[in-house]
């Protein structure tokens, strides 16, 4: 994988790569009749920087690799596009996303898709699973990374794991929150109640004993620097709150985060927004 990464970095800038990846995400979701546009587009910069600059994955010593879980599994098309780009499977598979007999299920399936470390889809479980992995790979000097949604952090199990990780002072567990400010429906239409999925999420993790870093989730350089800072912090668990825009890259989607949590795009809309 190192060879492919170096090749990619030579051929295109990060901007060009991510523009292409975004197009592939939208393409794949259109072909599958719609899907989780918003959350896939908000998380993709985070994922690309992680895979290209941070995760230590060597196919010759695969069992010693850093582990990665996309706990907000509904955004998996972003991860699939990246895995295809990195050579885990042929990019022609993306056209079969979510279809019967495809190796790309609607939510990550570790038993079907190369490159998926653990299945996800039922929100809230990834942080605990990553904690288990981090305990088991400590001796390899490897890290377990997990990306969660901010809405996902409403699940109680997330905080069970946060408590235990802090008590354990686990130094090789790295969490990232794709903090895009929305969920599927939530309190968006409620006149009286707060709409933010988890208010003051940074303070909440801090109060649970975590090291908290915050970053612009679409600033490639800042992401790389912040992830490296997280990587080098080993006194306890670390979370990066990445502030993102749901639907990032397409104004139509950025303007309607509820519709595009899981929605469809008409042909005429697609023609208007496509960057091809």
């Amino acid at each position, binding site marked *: 994988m190192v060879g492919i990464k170096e090749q990619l970095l030579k051929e295109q800038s990060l901007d060009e790569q991510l523009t292409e990846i975004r197009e592939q995400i939208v393409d794949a979701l259109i072909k599958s009749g719609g899907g989780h546009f918003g959350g896939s587009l908000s998380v993709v910069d985070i994922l690309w920087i992680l895979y290209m600059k941070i995760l230590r994955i060597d196919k010759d010593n695969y069992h010693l690799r850093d582990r990665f879980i996309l706990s907000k599994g509904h955004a998996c098309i972003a991860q699939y596009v990246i895995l295809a780009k990195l050579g885990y499977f042929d990019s022609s598979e993306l056209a079969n996303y979510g279809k019967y007999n495809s190796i790309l299920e609607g939510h990550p399936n570790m038993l079907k898709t190369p490159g998926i470390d*653990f299945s996800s889809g039922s929100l809230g479980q990834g942080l605990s699973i990553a904690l288990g992995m981090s305990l088991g790979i400590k001796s390899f000097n490897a890290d377990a990374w997990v990306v969660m949604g901010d809405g996902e952090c409403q699940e109680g199990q997330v905080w*069970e*794991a946060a408590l235990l990780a802090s008590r354990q002072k686990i130094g090789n567990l790295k969490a990232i929150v794709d903090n895009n400010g929305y969920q599927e429906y939530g309190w968006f239409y409620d006149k009286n109640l707060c709409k933010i999925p988890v208010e003051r999420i940074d303070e909440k993790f801090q109060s649970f004993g975590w090291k908290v870093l915050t970053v612009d989730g679409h600033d490639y350089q800042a992401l790389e620097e912040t992830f490296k800072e997280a990587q080098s912090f080993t006194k306890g668990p670390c979370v990066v709150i990445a502030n993102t825009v749901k639907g990032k890259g397409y104004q139509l989607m950025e303007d309607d985060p509820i519709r595009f949590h899981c929605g469809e795009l008409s042909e005429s809309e697609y023609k208007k927004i496509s960057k091809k």
Partner: protein
Amino acid sequence: MHCGKILSRIMDEDPDIYVLDGDLADSNGAILVHERHPDRFIMSGIAEQCMVSVAAGLSNVGAKPWVFSFAAFLCYRAYDQIRIGVSQACTNVKLVGSHAGGFTGRNGQTHAAVNDIALMASLPNIKVWSPASPGNLQYAIQQMVKDPSPAYLRLPREPLADLPSQEKEWYWLQPPQAINILATGITVHIALEIKVLLEKMNIVVGIINVNKIAPIPESLVAEVNKIGNHLVVIEDHYRVFGLANLLSVAGVNCKIHSKGWGMEFFGESGDYVDILNAYDLNPSDIAREISNLI
């Protein structure tokens, strides 16, 4: 306590086994592991969902975790985590549900697990063991250690009294007769009480002790179908969707008389004998019903 003792000895030879516990180690026997192998004992606190998922993650990177809690909290509180992290992912996670069944002592209904077999046996990949004696338990644990499949070990609150044990998934505890009782776990001892009551009426019954209840062993189905006649199935579980149902779905074609808790029972505070006599597993009642079959 026996499970923790047996497992801690096995851990002497197997460096990959870890034990996780949900703050009940001194009630469920995991304490014996903590004392002998503190480096491989992970106290997870009162957080069963996290605990099961941590075990799934540990298993994914090569460890062999055993997760201990009361059956009620393990199976019900963490069912989605078992479904996804253990069953669907087919991880080598062993789940030990202590205090299973309707005999809860003073604890009462919140601590009763009377449909845990229904939940666990209906999850793909998960084997279910229900030993009736220390010897059965030793065999069950040894088999679970050898098999990399996920598994659920169901243990009652009452200590398991000794019985003639065989290293088999099921066996005849009393030789076959025209009417036979099939039981598992604590109900094997209830079956023995019923046998004594029936002998006073000059009725002799056979008793099958089933240690591995899911999947139902094919050899058990073949044996029961060969014998024919009546099979009285006694389980410390609701009558619905427990062992009797599993036997029926597995192809047992003789008449099954299902003895288990009725749907009016939630579990209740009380000594073993009080609960036994008050509800559907009353040995005298069952003996009388069996005598009416003759």
